[in-house]
């Protein structure tokens, strides 16, 4: 060992010494760099002597001054958001003033590759989606980051789980990539891996949603990426599959979303203040049934059958007169549309943001704050967020650069009580049981009447219950960049990066004794307190070596390093029942139950990557990452994830002379990544089982798998990027195939082992797809500039091998349609019962009725600059195909309250109608109810949509007006109106085609059971820059 140590530096020295550094004469060049359109000086433009590491930046006035070795050279001018330019200079040049053109189509964007490096998009071998700050928040105000991404990432299916305030989104990049594992991508914010869990609030104590056909909690939880302030984001890079994300190793199977926040600038403080005020309203109303006395009696007081006993007849008569009295009361005092009552509120939305960015050449600061207050469309629901951020960049010395980010967030969301239950208490379920002729409003003393047809009065539940989630979160990161060596050809850097993500999530849910459904319970009054504390710490060390030989033949970037991640989470949920009086404290109760659950994860990774760039023409990358984790059965084993890619810029080759094609790049990439086993899969845990006051432990249903391994994904991606017509158009085309093996599957064990299940690795699934992106700048004149971005993407999944029998995943049984994982079928297929003709017989079988995967998706993003000061932009998305399981309509039908119950336009196949006994005169509600138990096809509904996601119209006050009114104090004022989700066109028969009762549970997306309805939002926005 010691001998090796001695030789190692010698070897390194020899390598370094083989470079020849020859010194020649030198000359100076100076000048100013400005924006080609506006003439404004550009601060911080990088000027580099090509093929060397000699460079300077422009100062606050846009001036630069550079000393160039030799007698002639090429200078490269580059600046973020602008197209780089090169100039030949020599001793004769003296002054060189440069105008840079804005990079409207993002041709010169830089995308992430490796853990410490980025690469110009022109040289990238992967299709990495980027979302700029302008795309993210430039059109309208968005509540959360993941909500702001829809329609902006080709290849992604981003879907809101419900319309409840505070977030809750499912992000699937390139299809379903796991069945039982974690399904959401990895989020990295400024180098820190942040937690994105969805923690349940413990509401099952009241809804008992998990007691029925599905054991999922169905609590409609939020997910934690919602906490970040979208206004803080500078850029987002999305690595969609293993070929790009391999360097993130065993966590990267579902893709990686890399978020960078804004930094300070060199110069006087730029203060930006923005205020948005708006309101939201329900996107689509379903309508309520207009009862007549006849239909009211038929539904709520059906006459007894022929053989009725006198008791039964008496009960019927009583019920009949009761319903009659309710109806007559409504005729006199007015019918009530409860959909409007519950969902008709126009919530007030307010967003105030302030950001200050300033600095010197040595230190730059960015400070921002956010105050968000948004009401929901249901009374007493809403979302409040306060966020404070400070980012500091400091050049400690010539070779040491320090970068620190810190962010504190506090948010409160009141989400109401929606989605599925088995007790009749959620808003949607109790609304479904409410006809328009009962009056459930409180009297002048604030007393609510009992619901005559249901266990809960939705107005009372809404007004008296609490379901509040409070988040306190602190995310901080620090990065130290040390230039160990900088010569003309070599740069050696050491980068140490670390961060912390610490939050407390508290869910407080109180259901007072007075509530109707609490009064009839054995233990009236429920108070649930859920406390989750989470701490993630990351540390990463990278050694980066860039080698640019003076011949300029190639560039070699090598990086190696290691990564340490720790995550700890502790969840304590207490449910107190039988509350004392109006008390809500947990100890003010007659019975209290507490559960605790702890999870932890410790990962260690090592990685190595080489990037070999031959004159921007051939770019070859190869790398490998090794990961070990406490989640694996064998914690000491390294699992390796290699990657390799090649990009060939045909347009940079000597033979290229096609005038109209400015760039043509062919690329192919390969990579592997993993997905950890779920926490606990390797443990056989005995659970408590007490008797007679003694504490006992008994085995549970799951046998731990000691040798559990991560799932493995292999992706191959190929395609081309081209830009045309003087960079006025770009085309990106990608084909990919992902193969997932060693999937985490559950296997049923022989019950005589005492266990029921164990997790094992097996099976194989593939996702194949195509992504096409077209960026155009069709019209670019002084008074009208139009930039258009069109994306098309399609993904198909298939389960190739399944070593267990086909199983159901996500849903409530074949009678109501359910997802089924089956060998040879799509991973998102929906099966259900349906009658088929087999020979002379007609039997009811279970067969495929639909698929949640869309046929394809398209997005359209258009920005117009009109008459220099007007800006109009909109984002629209078209999803074609993809089915949901709509059970909301079923629940309305079973209660007889569907809006179209009495219409006759519902059609079904002849076979189904015959088996169900549908008569010609039956109304919609009766037809659909008869089909229950005969066919599940009516619940599998086409959830295609065309949505106008965001629209914004803005006016920028012209410079002359600004100067006239404010002199030099104000540099820009912009105001305008915007809207979210203004138009949704869809054949789907419920509130919104984007919905998921089961939250982010993989495979089970698109099941709907009376969610919090989706809303459209309108904003009036003002932004002032000082």
């Amino acid at each position, binding site marked *: 060992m010691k001998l090796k140590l001695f030789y190692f530096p010698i070897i*390194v020295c020899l390598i370094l010494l083989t470079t020849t550094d020859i*010194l020649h004469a030198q000359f100076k060049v100076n000048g100013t760099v400005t924006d080609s359109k506006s003439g404004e000086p550009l601060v911080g433009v990088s000027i580099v002597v090509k093929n060397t590491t000699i460079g300077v930046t422009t100062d606050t006035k846009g001036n630069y001054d550079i000393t160039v070795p030799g007698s002639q050279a090429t200078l490269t001018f580059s600046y973020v958001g602008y197209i780089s330019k090169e100039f030949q200079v020599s001793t004769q040049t003296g002054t060189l003033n440069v105008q840079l053109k804005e990079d409207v189509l993002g041709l010169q964007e830089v995308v992430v590759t490796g853990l410490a490096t980025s690469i110009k998009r022109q040289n990238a071998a992967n299709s990495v989606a980027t979302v700029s700050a302008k795309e993210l928040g430039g059109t309208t105000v968005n509540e959360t980051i993941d909500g702001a991404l829809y329609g902006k990432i080709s290849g992604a299916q981003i879907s809101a789980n419900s319309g409840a305030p505070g977030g809750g989104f499912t992000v699937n990049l390139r299809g379903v990539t796991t069945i039982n594992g974690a399904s959401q991508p990895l989020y990295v914010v400024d180098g820190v891996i942040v937690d994105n869990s969805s923690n349940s609030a413990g509401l099952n104590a009241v809804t008992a949603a998990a007691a029925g056909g599905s054991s999922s909690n169905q609590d409609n939880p939020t997910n934690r990426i919602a906490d970040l302030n979208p206004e803080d984001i500078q850029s987002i890079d999305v690595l969609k599959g293993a070929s790009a994300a391999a360097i993130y190793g065993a966590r990267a199977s579902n893709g990686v979303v890399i978020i960078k926040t804004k930094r300070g600038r060199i110069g006087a403080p730029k203060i930006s203040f923005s205020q948005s005020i708006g309101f939201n309203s329900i996107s689509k109303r379903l309508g309520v049934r207009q009862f007549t006395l006849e239909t009211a009696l038929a539904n709520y007081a059906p006459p007894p059958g022929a053989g009725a006993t006198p008791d039964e007849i008496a009960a019927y008569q009583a019920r009949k007169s009761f319903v009659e009295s309710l109806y007559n009361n409504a005729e006199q005092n007015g019918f009530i549309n409860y959909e409007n009552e519950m969902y008709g509120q126009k919530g007030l939305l307010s967003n105030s943001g302030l950001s200050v960015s300033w600095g010197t050449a040595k230190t730059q600061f960015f400070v921002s704050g956010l105050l968000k207050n948004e009401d929901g469309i249901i009374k007493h629901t809403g979302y409040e967020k306060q966020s404070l951020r400070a980012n500091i960049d400091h050049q400690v010395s010539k070779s040491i650069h320090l970068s620190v980010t810190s962010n504190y967030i506090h948010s409160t969301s009141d989400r109401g009580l929606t989605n599925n239950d088995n007790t009749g208490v959620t808003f949607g379920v109790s609304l479904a049981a409410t006809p328009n002729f009962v009056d459930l409003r409180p009297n002048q003393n604030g007393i609510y009447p009992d619901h005559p047809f249901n266990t809960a009065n939705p107005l009372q539940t809404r007004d008296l219950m609490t379901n509040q989630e409070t988040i306190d979160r602190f995310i901080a990161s620090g990065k130290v960049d040390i230039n160990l060596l900088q010569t003309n050809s070599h740069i050696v850097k050491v980068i140490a990066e670390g961060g912390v993500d610490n939050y407390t999530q508290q869910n407080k849910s109180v259901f007072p004794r007075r509530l109707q459904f609490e009064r009839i319970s054995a233990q009236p009054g429920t108070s649930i307190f859920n406390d989750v504390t989470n701490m993630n710490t990351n540390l990463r060390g990278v050694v980066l070596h860039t080698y640019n030989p003076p011949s300029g033949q190639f560039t070699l970037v090598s990086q190696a390093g290691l990564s340490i991640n720790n995550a700890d989470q502790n969840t304590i949920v207490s449910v107190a029942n039988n509350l004392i009086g109006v008390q809500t404290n947990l100890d003010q109760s007659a019975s209290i139950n507490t559960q605790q659950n702890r999870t932890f994860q410790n990962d260690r990774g090592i990685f190595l990557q080489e990037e070999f760039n031959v004159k921007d023409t051939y770019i070859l990358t190869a790398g490998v990452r090794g990961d070990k984790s406490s989640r694996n059965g064998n914690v000491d084993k390294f699992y390796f994830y290699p990657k390799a890619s090649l990009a060939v810029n045909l347009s940079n080759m000597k033979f290229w002379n096609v005038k109209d094609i400015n760039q043509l790049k062919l690329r192919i990439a390969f990579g592997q990544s993993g997905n950890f086993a779920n926490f606990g899969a390797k443990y056989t845990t005995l659970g408590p*089982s007490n008797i007679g006051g003694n504490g*006992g432990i*008994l085995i549970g249903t799951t046998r731990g798998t000691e040798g559990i391994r991560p799932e493995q994904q292999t992706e191959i991606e190929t395609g081309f990027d081209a830009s045309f017509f003087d960079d006025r158009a770009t085309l990106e085309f990608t084909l990919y195939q992902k193969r997932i093996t060693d999937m985490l599957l559950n296997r049923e064990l022989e019950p*005589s082992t005492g266990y029921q299940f164990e997790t094992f690795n097996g099976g194989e699934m593939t996702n194949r797809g195509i992504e096409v992106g077209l960026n155009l700048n069709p019209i670019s004149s002084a008074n009208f500039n139009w930039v258009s971005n069109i994306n098309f993407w399609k993904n198909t999944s298939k389960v190739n091998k399944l070593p267990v029998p086909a199983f159901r995943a996500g849903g409530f049984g074949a009678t109501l349609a359910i997802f089924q994982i089956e060998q040879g079928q799509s991973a998102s297929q929906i099966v259900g019962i349906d009658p088929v003709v087999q020979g002379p017989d007609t039997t009811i079988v279970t067969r495929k009725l639909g698929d949640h995967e869309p046929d394809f998706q398209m997005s359209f993003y258009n920005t117009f600059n009109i008459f220099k000061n007007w800006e109009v932009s909109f984002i629209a998305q078209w999803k074609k195909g993809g089915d949901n399981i709509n059970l909301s309509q079923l629940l309305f039908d079973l209660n007889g309250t569907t809006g179209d119950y009495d219409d006759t336009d519902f059609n079904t196949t002849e076979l189904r109608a015959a088996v169900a006994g549908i008569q010609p005169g039956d109304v919609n509600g009766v037809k659909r109810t008869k089909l229950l138990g005969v066919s599940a096809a009516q619940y599998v509904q086409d959830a295609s949509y065309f949505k106008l996601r965001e629209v914004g119209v803005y006016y920028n006050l012209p410079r002359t007006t600004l100067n006239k009114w404010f002199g030099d104090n104000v540099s820009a004022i912009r105001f305008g109106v915007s809207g979210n989700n203004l138009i949704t066109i869809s054949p789907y028969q419920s509130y919104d085609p984007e919905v998921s009762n089961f939250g982010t549970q993989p495979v089970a997306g698109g099941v709907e059971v009376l969610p919090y309805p989706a809303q459209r939002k309108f904003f009036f926005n003002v932004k002032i820059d000082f």
Partner: protein
Amino acid sequence: MKSRIVSDLLQQKILLSFFITLVIVGFSACDILNLKDKVDPNGPSLQALSQNATKDEIANVATGIESGVRVDINLYMVDVGMIGREVYRFLASEPRFTGDLLGKENSVLDNNTFYITRPWRARYAVVRNTNILVESAQNSTELTDNEKNGAYGFAKTIQAYQLLLNLTLTYDNGIRTDVATDNLGPFVNRQTALGNIATLLDDGYSDLNNAGGAFAFPLSDGFAGFDTPATFKTFNRAIAARVAVYDAKYQDALTILNDSFIDPAGDLNTGVYSIFSTASGDQINPIYRNPDAQSGDSWVAHPSYITDLEAGDDRINKVFQRSQTATLDGLGGDYGFYVYKTQTDPYPLIRNEELILIRAESRIQTGDLPGAVSDLNIIRNAHNLPDYSGAQTESALIDEMLKQRRYSLFGEGHRWIDMRRYNRLNQLPIDRTGDNVWQQFPIPAPENA
């Protein structure tokens, strides 16, 4: 100048290469890439228990065994009670109770339905826990040899009892008796299974004889009077006596009974019970329901219980006259099932009354008819009935014995088993045309047998 600059650079490079080396060596020396294999934070892990259990943890495993015996006994009771035409479990949301279990029309007992898979697995879960107890006692350093034997004896006795319950469900389809490791033994037929169970009980008995004066773990009040090795072993023998008569080894049964807690002069209800409570983590009696509950969710006595009851028999207290007839699916009953009168009433594992009846049965089968009559009279008199006055023949006495078993052990899961082992399933009443009386359950499908 050139050479000075070059040597500056050389110096710089040597310095830097040392620095890099230092960094790399430093990292690897720090061992930061090493991970410790941590145990499950949320509960006791099997690994830790098997290798290094503390005395307290062993006590927890034993209590878990006692507690686990109660899991899903309501499903067991529904199974044996419905097929044995003792009780009706009316549950409107579960049509398979009055359908499959009674063989309504064309229905059969499905091998992948909860009525067999759940109670079957619940018993084997306890069996697994008993094997864990044996293994952890073996490897623990905190128990004395006597205490270890006590643990083995307890484990083997309960394991045998749990295997017996599953055998009563699958009968001639057999059970697995060797499930100690994840490498499961094969299914064995009923004869072999009974033999294995008997051997297991005998092994447990000899362990208990070397177990000293006390167990290393507490037992609940359900074991009051049976919570030391000396008293617990009488419970072991009681179960063994039941196994012996199931195996038609009547002479053996008589011998075994002598070592059990049989007491003809004592309280018929002396015995070992599963107890229940509303305390945290505990369980209430899952068979309890209000006997007058609405039809849609009720336990109802089979009408034949009342019609065949002798006048004056105080075992009429085990049923409750309902205010309204309970009806479901073409069946009906006027009397609610009332053996368990509150949600915390205990459930017997085996009682003195059964032991006396076993003795009566064994005496009949070994020719001691007068002895049998005297035992039957103990039972009859205890329930307000006069002495037996029927024929003193073997067949008449068997009829009487079976009748007394029917009423004495009503609601404890014996009727179907007794009628089956005497080949009298065809004597059980058929309530609806097309109903069947099943002989046994199929082996649960997940067993892949």
